[in-house]
């Protein structure tokens, strides 16, 4: 009997400690001390593919800026690796915490669909950005530029570098990332039409899983396995600097032309040294900003099936078509303009 009483007393102490600690450690994800379920402010969760890389840090900046402007609670959180199962689990938590909208860049369009469908069933608005999910599972997709515009920009830069009959290889992030796959697909379509003499040396793109060190290693392997390659596309903001590092190490940047998608801050030193001459992107700060504006629009009814454009704060009029919100045109960065940007 003594054991039971001591046991129960100890139990209550431990639980009180646990709850107290939790209370103390909590509110880790919130950006505005608005008191959570205050009833008035909307809560919008913004989830990148993973946290901790420049591209998505810039998205966070834009999202928070929009949140402050619109008087909305923005919770920015995501897994530390590009793992869709961790994203699913976090979305489940947000559903339980009754967020008003979920803004997400999913790592896999099909794996994330069931949990997004569940969110919509519970009355939560779902907006994807950067990479789309199964379109039937989300309300709107905030696309940075049309896939064709990105494809065309990348191919034209490559042709400038290696000529209309050079050979090239793709270095992508992950084989399930929808945005990367569609870009590469459109790039192949475009160059088959306009530059049929160019050669793609590997049908399956090389993979670097949003890991810069891995991208460097894979690029070094590419240089060894394809000694005649003229150009490499670094298709993610992490693959491109990783590949640039490899070209610099192997002193190969004079014979191999590297371009792709990445942020000015990641690429500045390589552009200044001439390792990479020109590369492509859009403004991820604007992307995050627009995504939050779009999400709020869906929640409060500002965006409906018949809406063809919205006023998105400092971005002005933004076009909407086929449930896609389009940010704008890609930007080409080079030594002449790279210092104007800070993201």
């Amino acid at each position, binding site marked *: 009997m003594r*054991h*039971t009483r001591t*046991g*129960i007393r100890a*139990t*209550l102490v*431990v*639980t*009180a400690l*646990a*709850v107290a*600690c*939790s*209370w103390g*450690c*909590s*509110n*880790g*994800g*919130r950006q505005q001390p608005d008191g959570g*379920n205050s009833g008035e402010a909307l809560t919008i969760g913004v989830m990148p593919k993973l946290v901790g890389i420049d591209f998505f840090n810039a998205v966070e900046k834009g999202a928070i800026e929009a949140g402050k402007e619109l008087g909305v609670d923005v919770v920015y959180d995501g897994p530390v690796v590009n*793992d*869709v*199962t961790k994203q*699913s*689990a976090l979305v*489940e*938590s947000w*559903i*339980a*915490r*009754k967020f008003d909208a979920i803004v997400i860049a999913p790592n*896999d369009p*099909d*794996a994330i*669909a*069931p*949990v997004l*469908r*569940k969110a919509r*069933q519970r009355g939560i608005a779902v907006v994807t950005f950067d990479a789309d999910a199964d379109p039937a599972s989300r309300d709107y997709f905030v696309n940075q530029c049309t896939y064709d515009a990105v494809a065309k920009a990348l191919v034209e830069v490559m042709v400038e570098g290696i000529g209309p009959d050079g050979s090239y290889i793709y270095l992508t992030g992950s*084989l*399930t990332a929808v945005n990367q796959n569609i870009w590469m697909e459109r790039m192949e379509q475009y160059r088959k039409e306009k530059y049929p003499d160019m050669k793609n040396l590997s049908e399956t793109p090389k993979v670097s899983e949003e890991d810069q060190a891995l991208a460097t290693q894979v690029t070094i392997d590419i240089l060894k396995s394809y000694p005649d390659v003229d150009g490499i596309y670094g298709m993610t903001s992490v693959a491109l600097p990783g590949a640039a590092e490899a070209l610099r190490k192997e002193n190969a940047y004079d014979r191999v032309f590297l371009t792709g998608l990445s942020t000015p801050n990641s690429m500045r030193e390589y552009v200044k040294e001439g390792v990479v001459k020109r590369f492509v992107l859009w403004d991820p700060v604007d992307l995050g900003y627009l995504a939050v504006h779009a999400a709020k629009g869906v929640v409060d009814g500002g965006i409906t099936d018949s809406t063809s454009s919205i006023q998105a704060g400092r971005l002005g009029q933004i076009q909407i078509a086929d449930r896609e919100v389009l940010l704008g045109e890609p930007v080409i960065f080079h030594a002449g303009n790279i210092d104007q940007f800070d993201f």
Partner: protein
Amino acid sequence: MKARPALKMTRELALLALLAAICVGFGAADENFRDPYNFLDRTRQWVEIGLIAVPMTFIIATAGIDLSVGSLLALCSIITGLCFRDAGLPLAAALICGVLAGGAGGALNAVAVSLLRVPPLVATLATMAIFRGLAMGLSQADPIGGFPRWFTDFGSISALGAGDYLVPYQTLILLALVGLGVLVFRRTCLGRWTVQMGENPKAARFSAIPVNRVLFTLYAGCGLVCGLAAGIYTARFATARPDAATGLELEVIACVVIGGTRITGGNGSVIGTFLGVLILGTLRFGMDMLGVLQQYQIILVGLLVIAAAIANEWLAHSTD
């Protein structure tokens, strides 16, 4: 001998009290925790761990262990995916293939432990790597998707009930297996032999206990349950992934330890394990609702496991 039943009742009551205290504590702190829809929906995340924790209780009670369960789950998931996508089998048949693959994996563990007399820690450490490697190799390290809607809905949306009181089907499966586990552990020869083998392995071999058959049943059975859990996991995440369930074995063992089963064997409680699953589950759920960051959650869970292990030893020795 009378001391032992009293020990179990005290232990399980204490766990129940802890669970109640956690629920009351978090329930008072956060309304989203109290929401019945949220709570019942959250139980989906406990099912795979809970299912595997049942046979793991038996295995640990024999002073054995199975570290390969996470890898085996991933392998079964991949085999289901390949049968469905590449071999064109109907999904139900593919799922059965997955369960059978689990049985085969468990049988491999069983042979190593019972016939070859390899220590379970070593054997399952090896199969942990082998199963994971097979999963990676067979799938070429790519996830497999494209499962039908009814299947993925089963994993994340479908439930029994009305209004806000919706019990997910997989939770019902878990309750059924736990009930079965409690019955087998307490009422059958298998259950008694399990504990006796853990208490004194040498004596067990010299007595009339069919040690090898028991070990085979336990490890192969664990494999079959991994196959079942794999099916549910695949439905929940709508993909078969070769890196699935990494670290699952540690979660499962934590639940068993919290439940009162000692790693050194000789005792066990399936009810305790189930309470362990609930305690860890509600603790994580409460912390998620309060917004506690992952890194702090891991610390709290670790402390709980240590506290439980100490309590196990203290209670065990104080009734000697």
